């Protein structure tokens, strides 16, 4: 090297050095510099070599942390929740927090409850076996007959949320613009993301008012009683009020009352009938009683504490699963979608993301379609596949048209939602629709953000039954063939796995696949075939017809709308794309399991085991 002062390196090359290359570079420079009197850098045992190692490794470590620190400031690379949360705050993204389990309750009025309309006040709760579920809204219902016990039909949806409402200590307002209160409920308290209620005792008349939670204060009018709520980088909720330009600004010394559902997490999940005619309790505390006196609708007849023992609740379905807060990967995936919509609903994905985010606790899957999809796909399905020539023949479509479409009926946005509630009975499963009240709630929320000339309507999902079914090319489509179709698994004679194990594994693959099915998905027969072939001990498998003896390699399925007994039957032995409103399910799990037969093939003969 002629000139020691000239480092023939680009200025940014520091970033590409690791410990080894740094060490090699130092040694190389020492070797090539005649003005430096060291030679022992080349010998591993020398002190100089040890010093070079230390310098190189320190450099490497520093660079690693420099790189990490740089990455942590970048949306696409950050790995720490704290950093991701702060980065997406710049675009006003509000990460989802923990979501408690939800269950619909069937309410019954005892004979002691006289006939009439009643309203169960919000925050009421039921308790049984150490589990508590609470309502988040007033529930109005009608008892038709006095002196008899009867199921009372609620006018609003009767959803109960796991956990009990907790009262946060009084907070006194300072009276500044965008006043923010950080909710610090204590360690190991899981606050449900969707159930934080805020009341303010306003100084002008000392009355309590309920403040509405809004997605963003910047969309609020000057005097709107509203707040926005954001899960911050420490996973605590920040409640922010307005500045009299966007949302009402708090006046100094006003009292703020905060209530939230404290979930017990996964421990609170329940199976059906955990609550069997459990008495309803009315939530009351000294402060809430005075809040309730100010906010209650005087036109309604609220259920009193004394009357509440005459109302019983039963959960006829399993609760939804408790969900953890969004993690870094989820935020990375969801924040750009949110950012692209900017609180305006224009594209299909804007609608899907908005509804999914704001009703995440109810929704398993969602698809949004436009008029063109509606006519070309949905209507075509009704008229050509199901061969219906009138809406009367398809009640759900008629019902949704009647309830949600406007008379003009163009520029409609059609929303198809699969609820989160699990239905394990096939008859219930195929009519697992979002309730009218929830549809109305979604509609009213969307109205503030949708384009003025878009009208929102709903298409209930079409549940399609999936079963093993094989037909030959000459046969017409008939669902009866499913009764003669089996999936035969040829067991490798060398395997130690027994028949039942193989059968269960095959069944689990099919069952899991359809349990996780989504609206309009590709039914990936190739993947199913690959997964089954991949089971250790499976030599081969085929679908078999017991009446004709026909067989086909791999799996052959029939997929059809069970309400119309197979008019739209499709027999598929290769990948099949469902329409956007269709979702498959297995109608009879036990029946399907029984149709999986394991055969053992020996060298010269086949033994079929039933």
């Amino acid at each position: 090297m002629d000139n020691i002062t000239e480092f023939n390196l680009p200025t940014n090359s520091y970033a590409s050095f690791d410990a080894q290359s740094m060490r090699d570079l130092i040694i190389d420079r020492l070797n090539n510099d005649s003005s430096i009197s060291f030679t022992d850098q080349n010998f591993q045992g020398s002190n100089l070599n040890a010093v070079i190692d230390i310098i190189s490794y320190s450099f490497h470590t520093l660079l690693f942390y420099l790189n990490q620190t740089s990455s942590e400031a970048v949306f696409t690379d950050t790995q720490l929740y704290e950093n991701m949360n702060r980065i997406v705050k710049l675009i006003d993204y509000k990460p989802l927090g923990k979501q408690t389990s939800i269950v619909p309750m069937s309410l019954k009025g005892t004979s002691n409850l006289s006939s009439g309309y009643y309203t169960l006040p919000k925050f009421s709760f039921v308790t049984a076996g150490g589990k508590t579920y609470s309502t988040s809204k007033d529930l109005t219902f009608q008892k038709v007959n006095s002196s008899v016990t009867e199921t009372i039909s609620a006018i609003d949806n009767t959803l109960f949320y796991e956990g009990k409402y907790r009262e946060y200590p009084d907070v006194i307002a300072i009276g500044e613009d965008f006043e923010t209160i950080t909710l610090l409920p204590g360690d190991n308290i899981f606050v449900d993301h969707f159930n934080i209620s805020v009341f303010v005792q306003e100084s002008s008349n000392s009355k309590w008012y309920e403040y509405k939670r809004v997605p963003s204060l910047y969309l609020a009018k000057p005097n709107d009683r509203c707040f926005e709520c954001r899960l911050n980088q420490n996973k605590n909720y920040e409640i922010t009020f307005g500045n009299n330009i966007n949302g009402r600004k708090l006046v100094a010394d006003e009292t703020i009352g905060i209530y939230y559902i404290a979930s017990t997490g996964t421990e609170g999940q329940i199976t059906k009938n955990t609550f069997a005619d459990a008495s309803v309790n009315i939530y009351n505390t000294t402060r809430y009683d005075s809040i309730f006196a100010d906010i209650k609708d005087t036109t309604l007849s609220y259920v009193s504490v004394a009357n509440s023992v005459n109302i019983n609740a039963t959960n006829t379905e399993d609760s939804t699963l408790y969900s953890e807060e969004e993690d870094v990967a989820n935020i990375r995936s969801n924040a750009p979608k949110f950012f692209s919509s900017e609180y305006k609903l224009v594209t299909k994905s804007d609608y899907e993301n908005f509804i999914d985010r704001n009703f995440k606790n109810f929704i398993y899957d969602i698809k949004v379609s436009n008029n063109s999809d509606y006519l070309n796909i949905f209507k075509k399905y009704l008229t050509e596949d199901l061969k219906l020539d009138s809406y009367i023949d398809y009640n759900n479509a008629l019902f949704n048209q009647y309830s949600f479409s406007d008379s003009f009926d163009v520029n409609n946005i059609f929303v198809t939602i699969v609820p989160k509630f699990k239905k394990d009975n096939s008859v219930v499963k195929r009519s697992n629709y979002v309730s009218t009240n929830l549809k109305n709630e979604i509609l009213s929320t969307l109205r503030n953000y949708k384009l003025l000339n878009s009208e929102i309507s709903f298409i209930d999902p079409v549940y399609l039954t999936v079963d093993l079914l094989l037909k030959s090319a000459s046969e017409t489509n008939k669902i009866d063939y499913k009764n003669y179709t089996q999936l035969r698994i040829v067991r490798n004679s060398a395997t130690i796995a027994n028949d039942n194990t193989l059968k269960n594994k095959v069944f689990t693959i099919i069952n899991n696949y359809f349990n996780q099915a989504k609206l309009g998905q590709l039914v990936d027969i190739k993947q199913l075939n690959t997964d089954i072939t991949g089971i250790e001990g499976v030599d081969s498998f085929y679908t078999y017809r017991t009446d004709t003896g026909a067989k086909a390699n791999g799996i052959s399925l029939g997929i059809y709308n069970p309400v119309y007994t197979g008019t739209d039957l499709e027999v598929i032995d290769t990948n099949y794309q469902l329409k956007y409103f269709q979702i498959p399910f297995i109608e009879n799990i036990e029946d399907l399991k029984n149709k999986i037969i394991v055969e053992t093939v020996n060298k010269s003969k086949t033994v079929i085991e039933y």
Partner: protein
Amino acid sequence: MAINLDFLDENKIKDKTTSFAYSDLSLDFELSSDINNTPVNRANNKQDVKLLYDEQAIYQSVKNIFNTSPGQKILNPTFGLDLKQFLFYPVSENTALLIGEAIQEKLPVYEPRIIVDEVSIVGRPNRNEYFIELSIIVPTLNNKKQLVKGVLDTEGFRYN
């Protein structure tokens, strides 16, 4: 773009000890009267760290090899003889043999400048130590045969 470090250019002062084959840092960090170069902003009473030359450099290297356990040298994790491990064995002829074999096999691998001519290990049970005597040849230093003597005890290996 390149980085210029001008001060290095100005201060190329040759070490006065120029007739050596090997030179290493003495990590005891004793001050030397020799000056190799003058960094910027340096005070007038210039002194540099002490260097080790030729045989001394090799002795230092041998000592490092004896005292380093595999894994200690981050960028060469297999490096080192780890003679201290033998202190957990009974002081016996057999252990001495193991130490001798380790030195004979591995020392030339880690220190290629030398040829190990002879190794003598003497156990001193009363003092829980071994006396190690090595006869080494350094080809680049005119095949001079060097006799290296040291003690291996709980403090590690050190020259007598």
